[in-house]
């Protein structure tokens, strides 16, 4: 379990990411998709923090902001205590080397016209990782690390299967010796047996290279397998943050509970309390007032409809944003 004393490698505070909506009429007031609305959390080195939630809850947008692929509307992201929006050109380049990404779609994340050698060589040369003459050795080492044959280097992406491509994506990320890797739905496109292989590989690499993962996924069973800490998001807000076992043992937010009860258990005799949430996710252009989940929450009261709950700490590592977190029992 990560100790509180460690300084976080990544600290996100009050991150907001709004995207303007195209106006349909000229005189219409400008509207925004509130993709991420006031999100704060931190990641400690050497751990895996996961962000889970339905599609459209803002988890990928958070990841993109951390990678500095999009500039946030407001809020700060600090990497090792440094605000990433204020990096100099040189610092930004170093930051780009420290934080890497593994994408969801293994068919879109590799340039179809460049061999694996070209891809890895480019990564190392952009970051100037090592002497030219040593790069080939490093490439062979990387192939060993991700468990692919050496002659993969001369091949083009279309010659690999989905799982192999994901390994190549990992190899590219590792080529520049990163500290933190953002895994954006990194295994969602793979079938279950391959998912397990890739996840185990990632776990192994984390141990060997002392990596930190920010793992973005919609799949709770995957998240349970890999995370130390889990962040649950709903409609651009964090509803609950807790350590892995804590979250699965005693979820405090009705939404988390609903998500957990939706995981199938392969046993017909198990009795379970299913929490049904009805309806669709409301639009992030016009999120509900008060608690954003109240439109679908079976426990919602008048208080929930008007007052927005804060994300508050209920025991030292468990945070939840529900007015009735202590009183609700599932």
């Amino acid at each position, binding site marked *: 379990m990560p100790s509180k004393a460690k300084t976080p490698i990544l600290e996100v505070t009050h991150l907001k990411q709004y995207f303007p909506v195209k106006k349909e009429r000229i005189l219409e007031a400008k509207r925004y998709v509130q993709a991420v609305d006031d999100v704060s959390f931190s990641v400690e080195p050497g751990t895996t923090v996961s962000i889970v939630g339905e599609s459209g809850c803002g988890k990928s947008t958070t990841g993109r902001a951390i990678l500095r*692929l999009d500039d946030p509307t407001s809020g700060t992201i600090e990497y090792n205590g440094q605000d990433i929006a204020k990096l100099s050109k040189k610092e930004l380049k170093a930051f780009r080397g420290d934080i890497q990404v593994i994408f969801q779609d293994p068919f879109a*994340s590799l340039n179809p016209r460049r061999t694996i050698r070209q891809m890895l060589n*480019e990564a190392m040369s952009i970051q100037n990782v090592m002497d030219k003459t040593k790069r080939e050795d490093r490439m062979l080492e990387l192939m060993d690390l991700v468990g692919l044959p050496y002659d993969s280097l001369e091949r083009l992406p279309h010659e690999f299967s989905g799982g192999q491509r994901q390994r190549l994506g990992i190899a*590219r990320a590792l080529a520049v010796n990163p500290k933190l890797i953002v895994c954006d739905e990194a295994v969602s496109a793979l079938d279950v047996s391959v998912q397990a292989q890739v996840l185990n590989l990632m776990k192994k690499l984390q141990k060997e290279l002392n990596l930190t993962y920010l793992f973005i996924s919609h799949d709770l069973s995957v998240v349970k397998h890999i995370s130390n800490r889990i962040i649950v998001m709903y409609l651009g807000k964090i509803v609950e943050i807790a350590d892995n076992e804590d979250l699965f043992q005693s979820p405090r937010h009705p939404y988390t509970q609903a998500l957990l009860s939706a995981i199938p258990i392969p046993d017909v005799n198990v009795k379970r309390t299913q929490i049904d949430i009805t309806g669709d996710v409301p639009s992030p252009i016009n999120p509900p007032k008060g608690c954003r989940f109240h439109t679908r929450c079976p426990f919602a009261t008048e208080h929930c409809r008007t007052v927005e709950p804060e994300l508050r700490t209920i025991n030292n590592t468990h945070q939840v944003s529900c007015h009735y977190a202590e009183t609700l029992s599932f």
Partner: protein
Amino acid sequence: MDQSLQDIKQSFKQIRKERRKENFKAFFETFLKNKIAVAGGVLLLCYTFVALFAPWIAPYDPFEMDLFNKLQPPSLDHWMGTDDKGRDILSRIIYGSRLSMGVGFAAVLFGASFGIMMGMVAGYYGGWVDAIISRSLDVMLAFPGILLALAIISALGPSLFNVTVAVGVFSIPLFGRIARGSTMEVRHMEYIEAVRSLGGNDGIIIFRHIFPNILSPLIVQGTLRLATAILSAAGLSFLGLGAAPPSPEWGAMLSSGRDFFFSAPYIAIFPGITIALLVMGFNLFGDGLRDALDPRMKS
């Protein structure tokens, strides 16, 4: 261990060589399956050969007048006859291939390089950069090609070089739009984002990652455009705006044959057939290339 690593690295070179051969072979195999495209390709090869070796192939000097033998119909001495000044038409067509094809290639190269650059920049940056570039391409596209060329030539004066520029300019928007559209499609691909998150700058992204991935439709368009460019250049010369009289440019030859169309039709017919065959060759070849270059066709 070190020895075996050396062996592995050595074997890479071998693999690379073999794979280059394989790729080449795969490309040719797809291409050769398309019989019509092959016919187009052979036609183009013949034309290129003729243009390259014109002085050795041509039976006569294309500029030498022989007034005793003017307006001769095709015979064994003059396969395509002679024109009103007694010059051998076959020789003139052979030499003219250098001019006509040269103008075509230069014009397309000119139009394509400007068009592709503008299109990629517009597509990649979007926003107001895109708005400015796209609107100016639209303006150019709004003019009928020949009219734009006429305007440019009347501004610059008639010469073969200016014809090249004019034809090149009206090819710009065509390449620009294709490049812009394809760039917009590619720029949000995850592999581009991966390069960005590695710290790769816009130059690396545009030239190393976007350009190769939008190249195939542009090559195809380029081949097809060559046909149009040669035709337009010949057309402008026909109107007297391009090559000056003695030069054996095909369009100019066609034009000079106009006056003798009833008495000596071969003066105009042979250059006409030559242009038509070349244009057809480019079109067939371009269609074949489109199929062979599509990476999805490779297994």
